[in-house]
């Protein structure tokens, strides 16, 4: 087996998730290679060695500076072909998912996604995928090579393996016309304000089911009664109902409080990945089919606008507030 790991970097920072995948790949027994694309690729390449990469391919072309997926497909396709890699691993992110799927189509290669783990069984690679709101654990495989795998965020710890300095190979790639057609013309970094929700023991989070921005008053009152913080889904943050600093999910914060109360949240996978390790999850939603009920300890089907004010009062009484 010859494994290539896509290492995602932003502003010279190798992303922890992809380093975790690299560390895992290094335990599978063969020398592992990594690919880093973008402005600071060469500068961060030595770090990849510490996590187990024997060879690091770097591509720093001007057109690769923007974090766009399609030029990265061009780079990886060339590296995979030239180096005859039979396995390509990715850590899930907004960028990496698009790169992995694009590469699958380019190479007509099988992609198994949302994997939580991978193992060698009698010399054959087997992926582990918790599916259907984690109600079933699926073992998946590949019929042909190259095999492509996209791992869930946080699947593996990024533990340095203490490897030596890697061979660094510069790659020059001719980019496809369609790969460079889309360009980033503006960027806003979001600054977090207010207390961090990552350390809160109790989080009351709201989604579209709150009905309107004013609905967050219900979440705030309940959070105050429980002594917790307020969280929000991407949908309501994008809609401007609540600040980005409170956003929980794939593109927001990952939290694991003792108690997570979800108000009017359907439980889309992007949200779930940010809160699924909460110890106890209570959900209130009017849709009995909402996916969130599949991974809640207590699910209440009903109108949160009726239930939450009563709940807040009862909690206050109970806690003597």
């Amino acid at each position, binding site marked *: 087996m010859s494994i290539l790991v896509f290492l995602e970097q932003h502003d010279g920072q190798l992303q922890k998730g992809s380093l975790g995948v690299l560390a895992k790949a290094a335990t599978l027994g063969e020398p592992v290679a990594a690919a880093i694309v973008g402005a600071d690729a060469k500068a961060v390449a030595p770090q990849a060695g510490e996590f187990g990469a024997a060879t690091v391919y770097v591509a720093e072309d001007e057109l690769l500076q923007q*974090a*766009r*997926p399609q030029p990265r497909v061009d780079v990886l396709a060339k590296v995979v072909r030239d180096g005859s890699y039979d396995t390509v691993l990715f850590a899930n992110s*907004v960028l990496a*998912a*698009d790169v*992995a*799927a*694009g590469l*699958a*189509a380019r190479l007509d*290669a*099988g*992609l198994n*996604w949302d994997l939580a783990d991978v193992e060698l069984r009698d010399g054959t690679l087997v992926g582990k995928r*918790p*599916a*259907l*709101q984690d109600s*079933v654990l*699926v*073992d998946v*495989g590949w019929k*042909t090579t190259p095999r492509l795998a996209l791992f869930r965020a946080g699947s593996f710890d990024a533990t340095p393996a203490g490897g030596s300095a890697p061979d660094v190979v510069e790659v020059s790639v001719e980019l496809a*016309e369609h*790969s460079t*057609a*889309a*360009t*980033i013309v503006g960027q806003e*970094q*979001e600054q977090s304000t207010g207390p961090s929700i990552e350390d809160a023991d*109790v989080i009351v989070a709201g989604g579209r089911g709150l009905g309107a921005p004013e609905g967050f008053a219900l979440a705030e009152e309940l959070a105050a009664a429980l002594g917790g913080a307020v969280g929000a889904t*991407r*949908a309501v943050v*994008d809609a401007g109902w609540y600040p980005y600093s409170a956003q929980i999910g794939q*593109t927001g914060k990952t939290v694991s409080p003792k*108690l997570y109360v979800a108000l009017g949240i*359907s439980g*889309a*996978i992007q949200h779930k990945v940010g809160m699924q390790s909460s110890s106890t999850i*209570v959900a209130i939603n009017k849709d009995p*089919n909402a*996916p969130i*009920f*599949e991974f*809640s*300890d*207590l*699910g*209440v*089907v*009903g109108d949160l606008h*009726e*239930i*939450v004010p*009563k*709940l807040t009062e*009862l*909690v206050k009484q109970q806690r003597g507030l």
Partner: protein
Amino acid sequence: MKIAVCVKHVPEGSARIDAGSKRLDRSGEGALNRFDANAVEEALRLKGESDTEVVVVSMGPEKAADSLRKALAMGADRAVLVSDDAAAGSDLVATSRVLAAALEREGADLVLFGQQASDGDGAVLWAAVAERLRRPVVSQAAALTVEGGSLRVKRQTEFGYETIEAPLPAVVAVSDAINEPRYPSLKGIMGAKKKPQDVLSLADLGVDASAAGEAGSQTVVLALADPPARGGTQKIEDDGNAAQAIVDFLAEKRLL
């Protein structure tokens, strides 16, 4: 302008995998994937009062026609269903191949996807289809405008917001934050029946049966097992006492 919207017919409620075939159980009633409704809505919003044509495209069993009809009832103009026994069990590589062939035939200026399938949690198809069509792709669109042969997308990533521009033709996957999908009106539902609805086979698309379905797939499901239990999940309906029930639950767990 012509907009094609890719939609999926998914099982209603909690999806399950059939232990025999190791495929998603599609025996029950299905529904339009809720995230695809955002893509249909966005196409209709872009269309507005213009003469833009909105075509909804799906690959699935014959029953998927129900979901296409829902999109037509919302206001789409025409539906194309690729339905072929030989296409069942397609993975990403095979599905993207068949869908791309159907989209190639339409030659749309803009192809829209929803952010994920609610059944298999798949959230990668657009990038594979875009690669096959050799078009630029932008995912996670939270705002979309089209003007003078190019599009502009605002999207959220792990690092904040980005604005991206791309020339048409292009592929865009919208997030569920982009809009609130409309409900079909009674008039829309009545009118949907009269709108053109084509059903195509793989042969109609010029795709060889060996390139689709399980035969054309490069991944395989090896085994199914029960995951480690999360502990019992309780679900109750509010009968007026739900607030008390929650407090009792929290007290029992010593969370108050």
